[in-house]
């Protein structure tokens, strides 16, 4: 996807998986890279494990709209069980992309959802997170995967943002783990 487009991303996850943080961080990275961005979670009755949505917009032009995203270019699914229980693909534009956290291949996901003409990306974000961070929280891996899909920022810019945002909160080991996770996401993402 060309990086000079108006990219609209919709996130699907379960409460506790870090989708709100991820949606916001992608926007922060994009702003740090000189672009315009917007990020917002959809607020409801939040509880851990409940399906939630979040939105990120990235553009070279100022972003004026403040509505929800109905026709996303990119849909990010942090929890693959949502593929069964939610209409995650709703509104995906004809040349759009779906990015799923799963051990399965893009072809297997396509068998389930169809989505002809769209690109399907998969990444075992939970597996990578367990190995690199020691916890099954897939969000930073998915940030890396998403930015490699959209080309909205370079890996170094993501690393900078991770340092800025979590530098004071996380141990050096955890920080490095998150950065490794982002790098591996860019390398291990599969598509068709």
């Amino acid at each position: 996807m060309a990086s000079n487009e108006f990219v609209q991303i919709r996130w699907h996850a379960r409460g506790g998986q870090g989708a709100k943080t991820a949606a916001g961080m992608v926007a922060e990275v994009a702003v740090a890279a000189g672009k315009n961005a917007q990020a917002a979670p959809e607020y409801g009755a939040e509880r851990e494990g409940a399906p939630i949505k979040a939105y990120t917009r990235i553009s070279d032009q100022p972003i004026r709209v403040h509505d929800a995203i109905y026709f996303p270019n990119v849909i990010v699914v942090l929890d693959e069980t949502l593929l069964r229980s939610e209409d995650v693909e709703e509104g995906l534009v004809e040349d759009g992309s779906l990015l799923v956290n799963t051990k399965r291949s893009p072809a297997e996901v396509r068998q389930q959802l169809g989505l002809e003409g769209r690109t399907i990306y998969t990444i075992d974000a939970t597996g990578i997170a367990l190995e690199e961070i020691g916890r099954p929280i897939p969000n930073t891996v998915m940030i890396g995967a998403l930015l490699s899909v959209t080309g909205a920022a370079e890996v170094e810019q993501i690393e900078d943002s991770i340092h800025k945002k979590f530098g004071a909160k996380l141990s050096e080991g955890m920080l490095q783990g998150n950065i490794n996770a982002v790098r591996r996401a860019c390398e291990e993402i599969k598509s068709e």
Partner: protein
Amino acid sequence: MPERVAKTGNDAAAYALKQINPDVVAAYPITPQTELMHKFAEYVADGDVDTEFVQVESEHSAMSAVVGASLAGARCCTATSSAGLALMWEILYVASGSRCPIVMPLVNRALSSPINIHCDHSDSMGARDSGWLQLYAENSQEAYDNVLQAVRIAEHPDVMLPTMATLDGFILSHTIEALEVNEDDVAKEFIGEYKRDYSLIDVENPSTFGPLALQNYYFEYKKQQIDAMDAARDVVLEVGREYGELTGRDYGFLDSYKCEDADVIMVGLGSTMGTAKEAADRVRSENGIAAGVLKVRCFRPFPASEIADALSGASAIGVMDRSVSFGLGGPLYHEVRSAMYGSQTPTADFIYGLGGRDIPLGDLKDIFVQLDEIRKEGKAEPDVRYVGLRE
């Protein structure tokens, strides 16, 4: 150099409060304002501000505390939402009647019942007669800019009235956006020093505060408030111009977008107006409708003659109301109609987004199409329409 940052609307308003460095802030948390004061409390805890931060037990107490501090000569701020503003009610009038230039970010939220945490303008609209100035923001940039300007406007010697700078709950308060913030010393110099002529604690020059004024003097007090609100008109414009020279971002009563050659114009407040500008561009290119958007930034004092001027060339007008005066209709609609007294231009009221219901770009485009039909028919029937309502 000004810095470009990514912040939520709440963080943007809190950053403005940090740069204001008020003498006293008293506040009580309420969604969606909570994170604004949470952030400001961090600035206090980190020593970034010198503010006396008072954690009170209710919004009634928050407003009472800043009124007291303001009368003593302190520069004061607070912030709230929805039911919090409702609980301040009694003291809102004490603040304006006592001529306390308190600055309050108000994070717009619906009022109960049923309970709802999301955005509409019922809270601020209910307070429109309380003697406070009201500035509305389209995005986080404007929320930040309005809070800084509010200090200058409120404290101007011709004004000395409290000012609320509103931002749409969640839609702005919890959305991260790019904005430009001023350097601390630039913001500080713009705001300047505050000195109250009469102070509660100036024992050398004792004055009376909060007096009893019955049939003998009360009316004269109120006339002075009316005059101060009128005087605020020039000050809003003067401060907006000065801020524009400083930052490149000019502010006035209104933000007129492609209204000069527009056949149909949408009038409204807050974050919806950004989406409306996009909708105007879309219907211009897709439907050939000459559409314009008139954003009302300053709702109190109400810029009636400026609105009438801006709408004078339109053949159909739609007013967007995110609140309702039960038994009357949309408050902005009725004030715009009043500003247009004598005009035969068909004008419809579009009531939308109550309790945070989303107003998609597609709905705003459809409203322009409806306005174009109204233009062709020369009449608006029905004149009240509900957007996105399930029947």
